[in-house]
């Protein structure tokens, strides 16, 4: 049996597949857009860096033993 790349089903469902594709692209856009908005609303970028759970001496004020 030969492998058929194109099946009649693909043609029949083309509209649905394209529609679903567009919805998924829109979903990616929404999640990306929300991420950009949420991150930029954090204000100071250092606030965001503190969430990486790794000791970062450069963002700790010098009086607390850090290098900043």
């Amino acid at each position, binding site marked *: *049996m030969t*492998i*058929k790349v194109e*099946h*009649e*089903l693909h043609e*029949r*469902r083309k*509209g*649905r597949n394209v*529609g*679903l594709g567009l919805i998924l692209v829109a979903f990616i856009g*929404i999640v990306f*857009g*929300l991420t950009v*908005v949420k991150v930029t*609303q954090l204000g100071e970028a250092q606030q965001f860096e503190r969430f990486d759970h790794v000791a970062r001496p450069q963002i700790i004020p010098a009086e607390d033993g850090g290098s900043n």
Partner: protein
Amino acid sequence: MSDVSVETGTYEAKMGDYFALLKPRVMSLVIFTALVGMLVAPVPVHPFVGFVAILCIAVGAGASGALNMWWDADIDAKMKRTVGRPIPSGRVQPGEALGIGLALSGFSVVLLALATNFFAAGLLAFTIFFYAVIYSMWLKRSTPQNIVIGGAAGAFPPMVGWAVATGGASIESVLMFALIFMWTPPHFWSLALFVKTDYGDAGVPMLNVTHGTRSTRNHILVYTFLLAPVAIGLGFTSIGGPIYLATAVVMNAWFLKGAYKVWKRDDADAEADKFKAERAVFKTSLYYLFAHFVALLVEGILRTTGAGGVA
């Protein structure tokens, strides 16, 4: 031999058939009232977050519409108005509608929670539950007051919009809810008076069928009376103002006048002039709701630009 075991020759649902499950016309009212609820709130919302929030509310409303069509497929098949819907016409399988309804419900609530706050998301989840379970599954087939309590589902969107901005509820958002809640019965019953429906054949108890048109006319007048203080009262809260108050007074007087006219008539009068007064009061009800929310929006814009507001 086919390499894919799918029946050929049967109807293949199009994207539009799935979209029709979401009741796009109902969705437009939801979008409008939720948008006003969000924009008149005292807390500004980032435009993109606002857009996503309204999208979530619209998708949530659509999801409850799909669940409603799944549950009501049997009665939809018996009524002329609904027989062309995707499930009774065989374009979409009931299981597909259930799957889409549940998936979109979860999707819209979770995304709204992530984009805005848990209160707004919880309220949206409750709205979907109310429409799909309380209204569709329980009240619609069991009481002629189905429209009254079911109307709450359509009244929640401005509250959700307000919650998106503020993270809570307040007298303003409760009154916006009450405005739509009290408006729904006279709006729907005036339509029921002049549109020949086959709800009776489908086993759905509608007030004009179970209690007669006299009782329906009484109900329209009483609800329109009860609606007026709610609508005008909203004008004295922080989102009201002179433009809203003037709109509310004029629109309520117009609606009450129409409801009184409908109440005074009987079926013989109505049939003599082809339900002129009933049609007029239904049309008024459409302008009524639109005018109130546009007035709220105008007051909100004037407040934001520092140009008006008395409260």
